């Protein structure tokens, strides 16, 4: 059972009259490449919000590495290795990508509260930030204010930030939305190439990517868990086709 890194049991989330998450149970294995799919408004983002502590569930329990984190503050979950990206970019607009990444790396190498030495005084921090900038092709805009970057670059930064947090469990909410077709695979390959013991949960509507990435899939519909299984089973599940995948060949 220690194989399960993250497990959510019986999660319920209500917004007023709307039940966005209805008794969802989800287990994430160590090293998994797990995809979470479902129609729009099925509650995928809500589920991520619950797992990361942005929202507190109405009912249910969340366990990370054997420890109950249902009531743990969001930033402490990050400290325990659970990191996410956002469906809609959440960036530090007045900073440059370089500063952003240096900050995130500092925070994770334990010097985030240091106040007497300048940011970047640690060589390790500067090097790691530079490495990430190069990796995500942000080096040429490293000194521009984030608010002036083109959408695609902002998206890359969004993901770079998450990776800078050295995640053990990574939750990706439509990471490649807005990234051009040619670069999507590459981006996901970067993610797939994370160490084998890092677990990834991916939300994505681009089925080509999802099927090439995932080794396991969960389908959420209307806040409820519809089914879970390996990619082949899901691809051929008539229920999933009916509510989500469709039958046409819009996506080849």
């Amino acid at each position, binding site marked *: 059972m220690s194989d399960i890194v993250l497990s959510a049991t019986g999660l319920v989330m209500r917004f007023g009259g709307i039940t966005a998450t209805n008794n969802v149970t989800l287990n994430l294995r160590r090293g998994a490449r797990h995809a979470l799919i479902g129609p729009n408004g099925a509650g995928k983002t809500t589920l991520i919000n619950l797992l990361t502590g942005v929202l507190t569930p109405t009912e249910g329990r969340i366990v990370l590495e054997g420890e109950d984190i249902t009531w743990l503050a969001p930033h402490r979950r990050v400290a325990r290795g659970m990191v996410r990206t956002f469906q809609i970019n959440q960036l530090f607009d007045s900073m440059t990508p370089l500063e952003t990444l240096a900050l995130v790396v500092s925070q994770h190498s334990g010097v985030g509260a240091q106040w007497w030495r300048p940011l970047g005084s640690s060589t390790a921090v500067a090097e790691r930030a530079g490495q990430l900038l190069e990796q995500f092709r942000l080096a040429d805009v490293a000194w521009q204010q984030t608010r002036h970057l083109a959408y695609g670059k902002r998206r890359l930064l969004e993901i770079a930030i998450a990776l800078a947090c050295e995640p053990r469990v990574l939750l990706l909410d439509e990471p490649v939305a807005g990234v051009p077709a040619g670069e999507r695979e590459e981006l996901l390959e970067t993610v797939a190439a994370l160490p084998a013991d890092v677990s990834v949960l991916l939300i994505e509507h681009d089925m080509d990517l999802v099927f090439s990435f995932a080794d396991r899939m969960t389908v959420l519909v209307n806040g409820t868990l519809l089914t879970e299984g390996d990619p082949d089973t899901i691809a051929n599940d008539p229920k999933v086709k009916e509510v989500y995948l*469709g039958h046409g060949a819009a996506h080849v």
Partner: protein
Amino acid sequence: MSELLRIENLSAGYGEAVVLHDVGLALGEGQTLALLGRNGTGKTTLINTLAGATRQHGGSITLGGAALHKLSPHLRAAAGIGWVPQERNIFKSLTVHENLTAVERPGRWNPQRVYEMFPRLAERKGNLGTQLSGGEQQMLAVGRALVLNPTLLLLDEPLEGLAPIIVEELLRAIRRITRDEGLAAIIVEQHPQAILAISDEAVVLDHGTVVHADHAASLQAQPEVLERLLGVGR
């Protein structure tokens, strides 16, 4: 089929920076144009320029014979432009329904019809814009453009974040609307294949200029050209 839109020598950008240089294209009534290009080549800038949301430095835009570039943004909607911005820009302090009624203009499309097209929105009628899921916001953005009852629909990556089944439906709907209701559309998309299939014309931008203009079908038939222009061949 008569000409609806003509763009000539257009240059535009943000503040002092010029992003588009000498862009020209034309589109007939009821036609659909696929606007393609790599990241940051100015697709969004072109769409926004049509909607009046950038700074135009030169050139002309004519819509149905009227000089669109002389109109201030809010009059362009009246002249027939329906805009779906790339970042959706749902009005966050309005409910779903108010998002539609605030901009609605008389015509075939009304909130009711939008709800029929996207039943999901009908269920969320009373929610604030920011309380919608990503995909729901995308639907609302499309619906909001439709209730303007435009003659030219500007769709900036409208399929992004939508479930495959909705993508299928939306593509079908766009095809239907353009064919049956005579609406013209310019669609920006990252997936050339999906969009070329329903388009009549195709234009590829690079570094703010038009580098390729063709019928959609013939471009679709030339994967090597797509590969060269966009870096994707599928």
